[in-house]
């Protein structure tokens, strides 16, 4: 029994969100007074194993198999199933990435363990492990528990925990041999590729930097684009900016554009006309910069920055780039 956290590989290192999952798993292990194991799987995973070693846990379990060289739902689900059967953990913890969404449901079917997806927090309450998840378009919260004492598969939403909270250590590695045959991997994957996205899907963006008429002129757009880039955000705009042709129409938020509900809506020079507000009021957090202290956007914002965006935006961009 214990917590098993599975690391996801990105390039030659640990996926950023997996570190958050480790932080979550460490927190769970502490609260539940359980042992924590870290699972790394793949092919030629020594670099990954080395990185995993430095994370505080009881052990790192490494599964090396040539069929795990590329991700496949079948291969990853099968190996995870075998590890779960051997180790019988109380919880399997991962980050809620696109890969996890893909193969963890299959693990759920193979092992009979429920998959509690996209949770934002964990607490131990009267001996129960309670997970919190957003429901109903992220507007309500719900508490979820595993029924009947079986193992639970849990994925944590990005930023539910902070990667910087991960405790470091020097953890022993245990290699295990597991079997996986070519017939078991039914899918064939091609090389991943990138697409220049002409039409951006603002509705699925986690962070949006949105710009309004307050920026004054189109020459200021690159300044805000820099900020968005530094923040890993999509850039969006209110109608006046779109109407002036400063940004393309698919970037418009509001009654005549997209309705968005990102984790963070960072508005720059937007006053907060109702036509705009209806498209973004569902955002989880709103930060607004405006020079007018009475701008209606401030009534909605969690954080109101009254000031000159021409000064604040470049400074913030710099601070973000330097961190």
């Amino acid at each position, binding site marked *: 029994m214990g917590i098993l956290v599975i690391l996801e590989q990105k390039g030659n290192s640990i996926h950023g969100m997996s570190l958050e999952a480790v932080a979550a798993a460490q927190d769970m292990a502490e609260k539940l007074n359980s042992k924590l194991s870290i699972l790394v799987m793949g092919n030629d995973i020594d670099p990954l194993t080395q990185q995993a070693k430095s994370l505080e846990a009881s052990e790192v379990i490494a599964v090396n198999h040539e069929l795990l060289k590329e991700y496949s739902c079948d291969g990853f689900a099968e190996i995870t199933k075998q590890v779960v059967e051997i180790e019988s953990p109380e919880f399997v913890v991962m980050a809620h990435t696109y890969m996890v969404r893909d193969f963890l449901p299959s693990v759920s079917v193979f092992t009979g363990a429920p998959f509690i997806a996209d949770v934002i927090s964990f607490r131990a309450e009267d001996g129960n492990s309670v997970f919190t998840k957003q429901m109903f378009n992220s507007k309500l919260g719900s508490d979820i528990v595993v029924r009947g004492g079986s193992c639970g598969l849990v994925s944590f939403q990005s930023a539910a925990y902070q990667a910087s909270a991960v405790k470091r250590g020097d953890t022993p590695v245990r290699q295990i041999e597991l079997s996986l045959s070519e017939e078991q991997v039914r899918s064939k994957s091609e090389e991943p590729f990138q697409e220049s996205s002409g039409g951006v899907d603002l509705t699925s963006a986690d962070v949006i930097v949105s710009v309004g008429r307050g920026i004054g002129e189109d020459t200021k757009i690159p300044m805000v684009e820099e900020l968005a880039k530094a923040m890993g955000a999509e850039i969006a705009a209110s109608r006046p900016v779109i109407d002036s042709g400063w940004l393309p129409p698919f970037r418009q938020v509001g009654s005549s*554009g997209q309705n968005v509900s990102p984790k963070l809506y960072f508005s720059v020079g937007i006053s907060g006309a*109702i036509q705009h507000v209806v498209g973004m009021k569902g955002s989880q957090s709103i930060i607004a910069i405006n020079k007018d202290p009475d701008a209606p956007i401030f009534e909605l914002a969690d954080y109101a920055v009254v000031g000159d965006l021409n000064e604040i935006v470049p400074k913030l961009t710099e601070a973000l780039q330097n961190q």
Partner: protein
Amino acid sequence: MHFSFFEQVILLVFVIFSVSSFTYEIWKRISIIIKGTGTLPIDRIGERCLRFFREVLLQEKVIRERFLPGLMHALVFWGFMAFGVITLDHFVRGFNGRLLGETAYSIYSWVAAPFAVLVIIGILYLAYRRFYLKPKELGKKSITSGLVAIFITLLMATYMLTELDLPENIEKLNWWGHSFLILAFLFLIPRSKHLHLVLAPVNIFFRSFTVPDHDTVEIDMEASEEELDSMLSGLTKMSKKQALDIFSCVECGRCTEVCPANRGGGLLDPKHHFILDLKDPMLHSSGVDVLGQINVEAGWECTTCQACTDICPVGNHVEKSDEIRRHQVLVEGQVPQEYQKVFRNLQESGNTEGAFQSPLADSLPDYTPDKDYLLWLGCFARYGLDPDFENSVRSFTKILDEAGVTYGVLTEEMCSGDPANRLGDKLTYQMLMEQNKEQLEGVKKVTSLCPHCVVNLDQEYKKYGEVSYKVEHHTQVISKLIDSKKISVSRSSSEKLTYHDPCNLSRTLDEIDAPRNALNASSSKYFEMEEHGNKTLCCGAGGGLWWKKETKGRTHLVRAQQVVDSGAETVATGCNFCFGMMKQGLGPLTPDDQKEIQVKDIADIVAENLVAN
């Protein structure tokens, strides 16, 4: 001049060839027109004759819409009328006869000769305009137009030569020249836009008095499959009048010139998309089943403002967005996602927003039969599509209260169906209309601040059957209250005030005066914008486009820019959609150093200047 037997045979051959070719081409088109659905309307015959007299014989509309080219056109037209008798006489001479006696002819020549000069002036100006000034709306260079200009000039020249005393052989040569020109012209007419010479007068006579005038689509949910198929296949067939329109088009491009979608940089070009693009398919198929071929993307851009139909000099009902949209919705099922959402909201909740509550409606008195008016709010006001519009509703109720007029709202008011109707979902429209008619049973007088609702509750519902009530737009009610001194208004408003005519109010309901009466009573600084009355320019929200997410053009900014340029401090409107659209447009367009232009409803202006009785 004497014509030998041989000469007469040659003449006869050419006349027969030219006349039969002309007749054949005309007949070909008539046989297509009569395949159209419905009948050509002949109601209000007196008004039709009067309109014919003014628009055809006096050329009133042509001259009014484009003064100089219009006047030149009129000169050519009147000249042609004058030359009818002379031309007939000309050919009778070829068979050694005379239509007019020598004296009668020479007297008539005194009338015709000056016209020959005027026609030459007219046609030369028109050629100068087409080939030198090259206005965009006339389109690509037209060879036939050039030919026709040369023909007409030569015709007049050869006619004038006959008036001179020429040697016999030259006179005869001139005679043959004149004859061939006429016969060639006759050959050319039906094959070109010059067919309008023949069809435009007919088309103007049959023009509908109702705008817009689309066929109703009645859907029987119990219909058999065959009945359904025949109903659906009928949706792409033109009416007789629509078919006549296509052949009457003179390709002047006035419709495209006034089209708000086109002016805003959109794709829609009514002259081509709604008219000329359909001509070849009609001729090729010898039929009228062509409405499905209208450019779909262009069709969705139309704001149904009716400016194109209103301005057409040959009496065409240009706008055909209704036809292409209902085909897309009912037959193809191809509907932009944002409109699908509006339709679903209408079906599920009876309003465009899918809302359950209206705090505004809850705060107003309920309608009971003892009230003077049923105050129809419309979804825009009811569900706060622009929250500021609530104030305008309150302004209107303040006026009614002041005048002692009683009113109430329906607790279960549904959407009048305007978006469904204009966007082509006739099934949802029918459902809403039936429910609304039931609710309005026994109601006598309805008033609304939304001209879209007024048009539908009144004119559109009536197309599907009788209604028991009368509907007045709120500006009409206000104007009457001012005239009857039920309210007193002082002309104390001192801001520079102009008025944006809503399309539905001006072009469809033909209400130009009531809003102006109300504004002039309240303001001494009222002025007209250049495009006003039934020449107004759409705000961009009509035809369901309020709900459109992405448009190629910037339709809504063209009008707002005009308001900015007019120097107005306040712009009044009489329509909630115009109100909302104006506000969205004026914000970004107002220069930073200029005070933001106020957008108000007429009710707001009057209410602000009410004087207690």
